[in-house]
């Protein structure tokens, strides 16, 4: 169990001076993840996206650890190359220290365009932690839908139009997909639960192989709420069970956060402009009902799987 006092003694590896929007959930997640690494030597990889733009406009790098960016769909594939180089150097005795590789990616670079590279890297068993900072849309290009966008959400490519009220499909379950790769450790968490996030990062870095974390990070601009509400909204995601906080470790599921009171999904939707049309239009009711049904079904399924051995 981490303590904030102890954590505050760790180096800030993501420097102030970056250009993220005020209240950016992604910037916060990266800062928290790097704080959690305390003492370990980390090399980071990232794809093109908000993080890349706000952290690395020449000549400014917010990263206080080595970092490589190549392209949009290549976080995991670039990481594969870096990790292989490291294995070579270690084999040849040129590097003695233990390095840890953290590949970041937004939901675009992870669920969609970077999906192939992620699957390949995990299948091959490279030792790295992949952290998806999931803000449920392609935010850097101005809020377009991704396969991580929830049903009903307004984005510029799934707008709340007069005929079709927002995105038509449910989110893709990326953690389940990672689990289907027989990954040793996969977890889902969010920035509001800093302790859970820090614990998961530390567990994941200890795995001798690939590990995956899906971190929900609100985007004030894309989700339509004030920057000040970022942490609050992410907490509501956990309290409504819209965002189950759980882990898959050595073949078993474990729910890490049971809300004291499971809130109805409306509590998560209400503060966000991207769901406003669901409350102002008659067809919105059915979408909200479907969202609730889906949440409840997944919550129940998750609990059913707990503690059973789910890996060959």
């Amino acid at each position, binding site marked *: 169990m981490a303590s904030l006092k102890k954590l505050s003694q760790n180096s800030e590896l993501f420097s102030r001076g970056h250009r993220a929007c005020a209240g950016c959930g992604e910037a916060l997640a990266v800062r928290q993840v790097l704080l959690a690494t305390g003492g370990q*030597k980390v*090399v980071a*990889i990232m794809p093109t996206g908000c993080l*890349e*733009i706000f952290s*690395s*406009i*020449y*000549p400014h*790098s917010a*990263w*206080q*650890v*080595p*970092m*490589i*960016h*190549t*392209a949009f*769909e*290549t976080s995991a*594939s*670039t*990481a*594969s*190359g*870096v*990790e*292989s*180089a*490291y*294995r*070579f*150097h270690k*084999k*040849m005795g040129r*590097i003695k*220290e233990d*390095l840890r590789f953290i590949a970041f990616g937004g939901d675009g670079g992870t669920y969609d365009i970077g999906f*192939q*590279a992620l*699957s*390949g890297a995990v*299948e*091959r068993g490279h030792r790295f932690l992949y952290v998806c900072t999931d803000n449920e849309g392609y935010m850097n290009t101005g809020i377009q839908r991704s396969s991580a966008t929830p049903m009903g959400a307004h984005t510029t490519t799934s707008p709340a139009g007069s005929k079709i009220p927002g995105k038509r499909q449910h989110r893709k379950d990326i953690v389940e997909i990672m689990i289907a790769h027989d990954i040793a450790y996969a977890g889902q968490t969010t920035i509001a639960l800093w302790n859970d996030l820090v614990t998961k990062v530390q567990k994941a870095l200890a795995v001798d192989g690939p590990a995956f974390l899906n971190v929900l990070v609100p985007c004030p601009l894309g989700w339509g709420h004030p920057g000040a509400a970022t942490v609050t909204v992410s907490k509501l995601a956990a309290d409504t069970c819209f965002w189950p906080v759980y882990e898959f470790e050595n073949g078993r599921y474990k729910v890490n956060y049971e809300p004291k009171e499971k809130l109805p999904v409306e509590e998560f939707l209400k503060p966000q402009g991207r769901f406003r049309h669901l409350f102002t239009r008659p067809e919105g009711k059915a979408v909200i009902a479907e969202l609730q049904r889906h949440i409840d079904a997944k919550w129940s399924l998750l609990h059913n799987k707990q503690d059973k051995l789910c890996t060959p």
Partner: protein
Amino acid sequence: MILAKTGNEAMAYAMRQINPDVVAAYPITPSTEIVQIFSNYVHDGLVDTEFVAVESEHSAMAACIGSAASGCRTMTATASQGLALMHEMLFIAGGLRLPIVVAIASRSLSSPLNIHADHSDSLASRDSGWMQFFCETVEEGYDTLIQAVKMAERTSLPAIVAIDGFILSHCMERLEVFDDRKVRDWLGPYKPNWNLLDLDRPILVGPATLQDYYFEFKRSQIEGMNRALPVIQEVMKDFREAFGRSYDVIEEYRCEDAKAVVLLMGSACGDVRAAVDALRKQGKKVGMVKLRVFRPLPHGLLRAALGRFECVGVMDRADSVNSFVGPLYNEVAASLYDAPRKPTLLSYVFGLGGKEFTPDDAAGILEQVLAGKKDEQVTYVGVR
């Protein structure tokens, strides 16, 4: 030691001797065997290489970039659609000035699908900041791949070494290989400009730039390519001294008193040599200019070499579908624009999709070039 090897076997053999630190590769016809044979070397413990069997060529190049940025000598092999899939990553490797070396078994680009030889794949990426070498024989492929590692590391530019698909990649030719240790010692260790894994000097590789810096970085990269030719020539000289085999950027065959010549790259040079010999027997003053280095474009050498002929037939084994002429013709014409003496230039496109090209075809072209004119702007050789 003299062996009989196909082009793919020769490239893989060279790779074994180079013993790169990391290879991230994906199979594609006709280069697949290079990767397969190399995998055998890996699994038999004959190389120290970390081999990454990636899930696509795009990931292959991304992994190669990650590896080269992390202080490792890195190689791969591909062709055609695979190289095309790597396309965006090639520019990134170029901009990061990483000396990745790629063996290519030159193959046409879809659609329609065709697995046979032409130069479309490499030439389609001619703007990516990579050095590009085209080989006539299996032995030349072997030699050039070894040289390319040194050239790439000295210039900080990535390099493609191309052998024609099937014609060279799958055909057995005489290959005199060098001693493993000699190759390794001649190359020496890779000394990167910087290293992502150097924790004492942490860096960020691949930043974003705004309007104030992009052009400056590009200008710097351009300068790197501008300075590459003398380095290439120096390494060729060094190779000759170490191993005895001689190479040049441009090679002339029986051009001393030639009236007219053809200029081309790749295995078809062999067919042209035979045709030149046959026509010379008839007293016709023809010759061949073989271009080995396409990038950097040796425009100065081309200007100096070609100005003295009356007519030059430029033979493109690719077409850039620009409603005009082929890519090699374009570059040759531009090189000659400021020449005090300009030959007549004739445009030929041949051998696309492995279309059969024989010494007779070559002789036909040479005759036409000797005559110094033809009816159509571009002759598409052998098209029914």
